[in-house]
Each structure stands twice: as structure tokens, then as C-alpha cells.
């Protein structure tokens, strides 16, 4: 059939007129689909039901029937094995009964054990204890004496032993005390200038009788204040010509460097771990005729914290407002994202789990009823925030709260925002 008839021409020539931009959030959907592993389609949005056709249902049953004889044999063997302990137990029962028939023996034995335990547990008398200790000491002393006599060439006489005891009991005056001959003099603290003159700065000598103390640093001595100031001035005067020369050399570059250093200083204000989100800082917007205008502003609140405030306005009315925070916890050494997910406005906390050039993913595993992932991904015009629940469905209260997002399904909520110029 010809393609050149009137109807064909009419449609072919006007075919391009159907070209039309799809809805704005479609890219977010595609991007969300791409995030999912291949094979899992949008069907994930709906609960899955397995449809079993009669044929497919019959297939596994046939397979089971094929192995039925083996299963039967195996079950018999298992039954025998399970029953055998019961049989042995029954055989042993009469013997046990005989034993149980002699309660007197059991009673006597138990009593004997009890008595023994009680006797061990009872405390000894004080006198008995002392006698025991004395005996032990005597035994030990004898052993030591024997050992000493064996080792020494000449056995020690009682006289020697007495001398030893005397030596031990000498009065404290006769002890040799190692003290300095001269009386201890206070070491004069050297001034900075004197110290400079001397090549080796003498350390204060160690005096055992004097409590050990470190020499005071010159700066710590308030009396040396004027001298230190004078020294500092001297140092500045020495360094000044060099600085002037350098400044003259730079001359023109100085102004340029100033601007740069200001930028650097600003950058340094952000914590290195938060610098990852620096691209997010700014104001974003999204306009939809039905919902209104969404404005989201991300700013640096603290070197460790950036805050995003999202507002939905319809005309002059503020319909919705929420605050999000990305911060670095110094103690835990982790980056977190806090954002509310229901009308209670209590922020749910997510930890930064992974990031690459495409997206930044925060996750939480503590509460199963909360979405488990929050994804931030920069787009051509701005950025997209995706809230994902992969362990079930978003709760009704969460869906109600997230209804202002561009797209909401029962497992994800997506917000597309454009960077405001």
C-alpha cells in the first residue's frame, strides 16, 4: 500500500507537532529508575503478588512427586533414629527404679556431704588461727636458715644473727645521709640578655633535699616584662626592612592576592568534610501552577553546619516550611543530614554513606519505618533530592508530609529544584 496517499501525507507532515515536553519530574523518575538495579522496574511501587498459573503450579508438585519414594525412606530412617533413645530409656527405667528404692543410702550420703561442706565453711577460733600462723612462720624460718647454712661456707652462729638484728635496729641518727656540704643557695634566674651572652645556658642543679622545681621561664616572670618588650621591638626592627623589601617587590600583585586570600579565608571557614556540599549553597526554586512556588535556600550556618530552609508559597501565603541540616559531628567524625519527614517536624538523622561525582547518599538503618536513603544529586539546572524507602512503603503520615514534592509514590519522594539566577 502506498505511503503517498492524502491521509499518510497529512499525518507524516504534521507528525512533529506532537513533540511536546513531558512533565518536569519525568527526569527524576528516570533517574530514580536508573538508580535501581536493572530488572527492577516501576512495578516496585506496587506491592508484588505472585500470579501462579495452573501450569506453573503443577510443575513443582510433579517434581516433588518424583522424589516422593526417597523422602518416604528418609523419613522412616529418621523416625527410627528418633525413637531409639526412647527405647533405651525405657529399658533403663527399672534399674533406676531399683536405685530409687534405697532412699536411706541417698539420704546418708547427702548428709555426709552436707556436713563436710559445713565444716569447711565454719570459721576457726582466733587462738587456733594464731597457733597455725606461728607454726607456719617457724617452719619457714627453719627452712630459710637451713638454706642459708647450706649455701654459706661457714655456718652462721647465733652471735652473727644477733649482730644482723642489731644492724637492722640501728637508730636513725647513725644512718648515712647523702647531703651536700654547702648550704643550698637559690640559683639566680638568668635574664634573657645574660642567657644570650652565655653560650651554654646552665641548668639549675639537682638538689635532692629541695623539692624538685623547674626554673621559671623568663616570660613567666612579671618583673622581666619591660626587657622582653624591648627585645621584641628589636626583633621587629630587624625584620621590618626585609618585609618592606618583599612588599615592594610584590607591589602590584598585592591587590590581586588580597582578593584571593579573602576567598581562601572564606573557604577555610568551611569544614573540609562539609566542603563536599559547598556546591549546594545558594537559592533554588521550583514553580508549579498547582502547588505554588518552592524556594529552598542553603547557607553556611557554621563551619561544620549548612542549613537548608525550604518554603512553599502560594501567592503570599506560606503553605509549608521545613529545615534541613547537613553537619559534621566532631565526636563521631561523621557527616549527618537531619530533615523532618512527618508533621511532628522531628528531624530524622541520616549518615553520609557514600558519594561520587553523581550523587551523595545518606542512609539510616535504625528505624525501619523511616525511609532508608536520602539522595542529593546535582542536575543541570539545580539539584534533586530523593527520599527512598526500600524496606517497605512510606507511611501515610510521611506521604502526607511529603505531598508537596514534585513526585511522590509509596516508596519515594522526589523534589527537583532549579538554581535561582
Amino acid at each position, binding site marked *: *500500500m502506498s505511503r503517498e496517499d492524502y491521509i499518510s501525507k497529512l499525518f507524516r507532515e504534521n507528525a512533529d*507537532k506532537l513533540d511536546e515536553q513531558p512533565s518536569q519530574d519525568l527526569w527524576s*523518575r*528516570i*533517574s530514580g*529508575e536508573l538508580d535501581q538495579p536493572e530488572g527492577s522496574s*516501576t512495578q516496585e511501587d506496587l506491592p508484588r503478588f505472585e500470579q501462579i498459573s495452573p501450569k506453573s503450579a503443577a510443575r513443582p508438585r510433579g517434581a516433588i512427586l518424583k522424589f516422593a519414594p526417597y523422602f518416604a525412606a528418609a523419613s522412616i530412617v529418621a523416625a527410627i533414629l528418633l525413637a531409639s533413645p526412647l527405647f533405651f530409656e525405657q529399658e533403663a527405667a527399672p534399674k533406676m527404679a531399683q536405685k530409687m528404692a534405697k532412699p536411706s543410702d541417698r539420704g546418708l550420703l547427702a548428709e555426709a556431704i552436707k556436713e563436710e561442706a559445713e565444716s569447711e565453711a565454719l570459721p576457726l577460733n582466733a587462738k587456733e588461727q594464731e597457733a597455725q600462723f606461728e607454726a607456719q612462720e617457724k617452719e619457714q624460718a627453719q627452712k630459710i636458715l637451713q638454706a642459708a647454712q647450706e649455701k654459706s661456707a661457714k655456718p652462721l652462729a647465733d652471735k652473727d644473727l644477733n649482730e644482723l638484728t642489731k644492724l637492722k635496729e640501728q637508730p636513725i641518727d647513725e644512718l648515712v645521709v647523702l647531703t651536700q656540704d654547702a648550704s643550698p643557695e637559690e640559683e639566680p634566674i638568668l635574664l634573657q640578655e645574660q642567657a644570650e651572652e652565655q653560650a651554654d645556658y646552665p641548668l639549675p642543679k639537682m638538689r635532692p633535699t629541695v623539692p624538685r622545681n623547674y626554673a621559671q621561664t623568663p616570660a613567666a616572670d612579671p618583673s622581666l616584662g619591660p626587657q622582653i618588650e624591648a627585645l621584641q621591638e628589636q626583633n621587629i626592627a630587624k625584620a621590618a626592612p626585609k618585609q618592606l623589601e618583599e612588599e615592594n617587590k610584590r607591589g602590584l600583585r598585592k591587590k590581586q592576592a588580597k582578593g584571593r586570600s579573602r576567598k581562601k579565608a572564606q573557604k577555610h571557614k568551611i569544614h573540609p568534610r562539609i566542603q563536599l556540599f559547598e*556546591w549546594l549553597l545558594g537559592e533554588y526554586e521550583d514553580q508549579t501552577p498547582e502547588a505554588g512556588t518552592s524556594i529552598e535556600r542553603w547557607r553556611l550556618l557554621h563551619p561544620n553546619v549548612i542549613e537548608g530552609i525550604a518554603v512553599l508559597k502560594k501567592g503570599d501565603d506560606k503553605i509549608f516550611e521545613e529545615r534541613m541540616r547537613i553537619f559534621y559531628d566532631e565526636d563521631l567524625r561523621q557527616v549527618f543530614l537531619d530533615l523532618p519527614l512527618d508533621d511532628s517536624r522531628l528531624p530524622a538523622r541520616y549518615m553520609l554513606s557514600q558519594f561520587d561525582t553523581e550523587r551523595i547518599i545518606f542512609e539510616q538503618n535504625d528505624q525501619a519505618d523511616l525511609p532508608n536513603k536520602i539522595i542529593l544529586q546535582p542536575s543541570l539546572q539545580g539539584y534533586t533530592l530523593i527520599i527512598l524507602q526500600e524496606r517497605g512503603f512510606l507511611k501515610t503520615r510521611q506521604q502526607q508530609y511529603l505531598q508537596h514534592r514534585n513526585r511522590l509514590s509509596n516508596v519515594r519522594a522526589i523534589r527537583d529544584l532549579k538554581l535561582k539566577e
Partner: protein
Amino acid sequence: MPAARSYSVHQSTKTVTEEELIEGCRAGNHLAQERVYQRYSAKMFGLSRRYVKTTENAEEVLVQAFCKVFRKIDKYSGKGSFEGWIRRIVVNEALMFLRKKYRFSEHVEITEVPAKAVQISVEDELSAKEILALLEQLPTGYRTVFNLYVVEGYKHREIAEMLGISINTSKSQLILAKKKMRTLVEAARQIRGMK
């Protein structure tokens, strides 16, 4: 680092060539994918819209088609046009979508569809609304064959393979589709003449 990249994302006005985009997509670059989507989404949405009736369904087809484009980008040899390759994927996805709800092989006979009066503004010119209104009057089988043959330029053998029908069924469906379309256009003309 996203910081550096995002700068280029938001502020760069450099035009990227199709080859660069394809390379980017091959590397799994999210932004290259988005640019490809932006470049072809309108055309492909129009294409999808011609096959499935509602906007929601057309979008569903588009989502699946673009996912396939980015996942199977390695299969694009680079010999033919990239747009043509995407177009084929969109058509295939639309057909797959229709197959879920419609069995092409079972709808050979003409079914009576209550014809709605479509107003055509100028005889040789059709607006998007008019095209859609006319196409919507056709039963799914007719519309599909009509689109594949007239607009996409497939042969009956190819259409038969794609839809799982015989070549003769494809031919007869096209004849019936054109006949129906002519009736609709004439009806529209008559309405215009009356006005």
C-alpha cells in the same frame, strides 16, 4: 568532586556534541544522561503519545525507554543516527506497553467505535490536538499499524514481526485504519463546511 563539577553544571554554556554525550552516557555520567534526555525527550514524548492514549501512559513508556537507552548504550554501534536508535527503543517500549493490555493478533476485524466529530482547522494542516483526537478515534491495532507504517516507515513484514501478527493482518489493519481515518477527516470537513 561535586563542588568543582557542579560549577560547570550550573554555569557552563558550552555546547556538547552528540559524540561527547554518548561517551558520557557510556561512562554512566548522570549529567550526560540528563542532557541526552533533554535533547530528545520532547520528540520521544510526541512519538510515545501517538501510540498510547493517555499522557500518563506515554510518560511511563518514556521512562522505560530512556532507562533502556542508558542501560543499553553500549549496544549502540554509532553507525546509524543516535536519534533513530532512541526512536526505535521508544517504539518498542510503546509496543511492549500495548502488548500488556492488548493482543494484536485477536483484533483483526473492524470494531465499531463511536466516531467523534473532529474539527480540522485547515485542510492540510493538523494541530497536535487534532492529530491526537483523530488517532484516539482509531482502535489500538489500527493506530499502531498506521503509526508504524505511515509515520515510522516500517514495512509490513517488520510490523508483522514486531506485533506478532501475519503480514496480511498488518496490511488489512492499515487499510481499515486509513479508511477509518478518511471517514473521520471527511466528517470533520463536513462540520467545517456547515460552519
